[in-house]
């Protein structure tokens, strides 16, 4: 029930973790973030879409790793010791996303949030909750749960249908 509430709730969260994909900054609800770790070798899964890098062993749990850079068609996808994986808790599942970098955690008041634009960002606007503006920065506030459980990503079998 909690997920439903969060997924359908269109108001952005107050505390957001900001990461970059290419030139854009994205903010996600910090409560969805379990941890941040470096990119480790993954076990590749055959016949899976390119953005699914594979699975890793996260202290005994088998966790799939999605490279959002590949998913959103960014250029020069490289894996360095500084490549960052954000481990998320979405629904009942744990999943990791690869991003270019993690910058900071920002606090947003409602008045700092603008409605989502119709186009112009790499992420499908369905998953954009709004824009957060802090001084000169613009952060795209993303409904990460909706994105991760979407049919588009085909990460899970049933989850997106349930909610």
């Amino acid at each position, binding site marked *: 029930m909690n997920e439903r509430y969060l997924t359908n709730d269109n108001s952005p969260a107050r505390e957001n973790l900001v990461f970059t994909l290419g030139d854009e900054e994205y903010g996600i609800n910090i409560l969805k973030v379990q941890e941040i770790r470096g990119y480790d070798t993954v076990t590749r*899964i055959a016949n899976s879409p390119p953005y699914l890098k594979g*699975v890793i062993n996260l202290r005994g749990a088998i966790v799939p790793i999605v490279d959002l850079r590949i998913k959103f068609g960014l250029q020069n996808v490289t894996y360095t010791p500084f490549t960052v994986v954000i481990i998320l808790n979405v629904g009942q599942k744990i999943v990791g996303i690869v991003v270019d970098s993690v910058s900071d955690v920002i606090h947003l008041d409602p008045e700092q949030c603008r409605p989502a634009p119709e186009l112009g960002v790499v992420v499908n606007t369905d998953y954009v909750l709004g824009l957060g503006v802090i001084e000169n920065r613009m952060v795209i506030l993303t409904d990460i749960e909706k994105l991760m459980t979407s049919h588009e990503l085909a990460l899970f*079998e049933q989850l997106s249908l349930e909610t």
Partner: protein
Amino acid sequence: MQIDLSQFFDIFFEEAEEHLATLESVLLALDIDAPDAEALNAIFRAAHSIKGGAGTFGFTDLINVTHQLETLLDAVRKHTLQLTPSHIDTILAATDALRDILNNCRQGVATDPVLIQEMEARLRAELLPKAVSSAAIPVLQEEARTHHFSIATDGQLAWEALLQRLTAEPRAKITGFPVEPDAKDPLCIEFIGTDSEFADLCDSLAFVVPPSAIRLEHAPPPLVDDANSWGLFHEETSTAVVSPSVLEEEDGWGLFEEDTPPAIAIVPSPLPLTLIEEDDGWGLFNTVPTSPAPSNATPQVTASETTDDDEGFGFFTPVPQPPAATSLATAMAEEGDGFGLFVPVPLAPPVAPPVPVVSAPQVVAPTAPRATAPTPTRQGNNAESATIRVNVEKVDQLLDLVGELVITQSMLAQCAAQLEQQGVGNDILLAGIKQLERNTRDLQESVMSVRMMPIASVFNRFPRLVRDLAGKLGKQVELHLEGESTELDKAFIEKLADPMTHLVRNSLDHGIESPEKRRLSGKSPIGHLTLRASHQGGNIVIEIRDDGAGLNRERILAKAIERGLPVHEGMPDTEVWNLIFEAGFSTAAEVSDISGRGVGMDVVRRNIQEMGGSIMIESVAGVGSTITLRLPLTLAILDGMSIRVNGEVYVLPLTCIIESLQAQPSQYKTLAKQGEVLQVRGQYLPLIRLADIFLTQTEHPTGSASLQQGLCMIVEAEKEMVALQVDELLGQQQVVIKNLETNYRRVSGISGATIMGDGRVALILDVPAVVRMAKNRSRA
């Protein structure tokens, strides 16, 4: 206070359900004609525990019903009420009602008071008509009394030893010697003591005389009573019967023989005394309070001596009417050593019979003229064991942690090995790591064993199910359970229940015929259903066997043709039987509420396959059918061979591997557009290149370059042999199976994942699925 107690509710509910299950299983195992005293006590205890718990937590509905149940059980246990099938039905109904009430309590819903009152009334009704007034309940203790017995003298007795034993026992008094040394007159002895003491004496005498020579005489009452006691015997009966007994009983009692008056003289127990004694000792006569009990023994003796066997022990062979003494005596007769009679009857409530020879049945054997042999005391699963209740999640967590520990340990071992290679090894470190390895393995095994449970917890539901179903279907079925202590993973236990229930129902409904039909086909009217579990290699094998009609090949084929399935007359039986696993397949002439709708067998097979098991049917028309379920030992651990394909490590379940070989280029053959085959010792096996199946994005199909150096694993998938080509063979190891679907989704060709010694994830191959994938590819 209520809040404080409520945290224990769950425990109480669980315990109560367990007690109910115990009660039910013990009850169903009970031999109605000769109930085992210990079993009766166990049933009573179960009911009592529920009542006690309900009292503590204030579930009045439960208390009311259990109280009545307890009263009924107590009467049965104390032998003031003899058990009948109707009692069993009522008690079972009561357990059902209790379960309902329990569920209602759990959900905090009030139970319909009418229901409770009805149940109480029913229980009370069972009790009332046959119960005796409280005054008649026998005194619950053993009393010393006079026992008379005789020892047949056929000239072969060890007289000296016998006399020595007898004189060593001060309470025994020899009352009658044979008149002449070589005469057949018996040695008569009088003994004063309790029943158990007497049994002890008999035991000790058995060292010197054959047990068959020892005869018991229960203080025979004066003969005058015989005639009018039962109305069964005419005035002249006493004399008429006595004479044949004299003729036949060569080494008789000396009781009825005219020329041995001492025999009668030495049994002078007065009538009133006998009455009381009999009452105390056996509680027999309560049920027929009007009949003059004391004369009981004698008429039977005389009546049966005329007819009965030369063993001389059958004198209590039941005449239709007489109460309990009959079955007692017959039980004794069957025992052979003749001591059964003296085993004290457990009348005092908590005292179990000290001698487990025959728990003297207190019941009239209404049907069988010769009561069945007493069942051996059951060493039951009702034995209380020291257990604790732990949430499964905690065990699983423990298992996960141990898995992690194993990984850490193997990482350490690798490090140590590297250090040693570099020449900086430390003996103490190495020794420590070796020990860690051993301990970890032991720990892993122990934690695994925590998850193992005896299959009895699945089997135990079937006695009731079979009883109910057989009653509903009007069939007579005897259920046999074998190998109940076979242990398997708890996860299986839960998943097995439904498929097995289905199979058992099927066997009862379609397999075992009605008694008439069985009689017509020359079988015993009672059908037999056997559930057997056993270990076979790395598998648990569960058999469900019935001796019913077997599967009907023609009917199945006809049905298959009707449904448009690809079948032909010449199909082997096994393939025909497998048709019944097709969805919606039912040949049942009519649909009953038990089975026959054709949903199910496909579900059963799917359930079993999901557990990594297989299902097999054997059937012979008219003889019966056997369904065999084969399951891996555990869900959580797998013996596997790790292989490398396209740079990734995969685990191949060891159970499906037949052999591995380095194939020569000449062994590869291609079939035009049908893919490749591998020639192995004259057999052509389909060849599947795993590298082509498990393509990852960055790799391109490995060309024929790797073909030459490739290794082939011959595997069996769904009864089909297939060669899998792999890049490298890494070694065999036990792996902890992890579910990929926990955080991801199902991947075709992969049954799960595991974590290898280096902490990396390896995927476990689902061989049948891989074969299917390859077939689809070659078709495409």
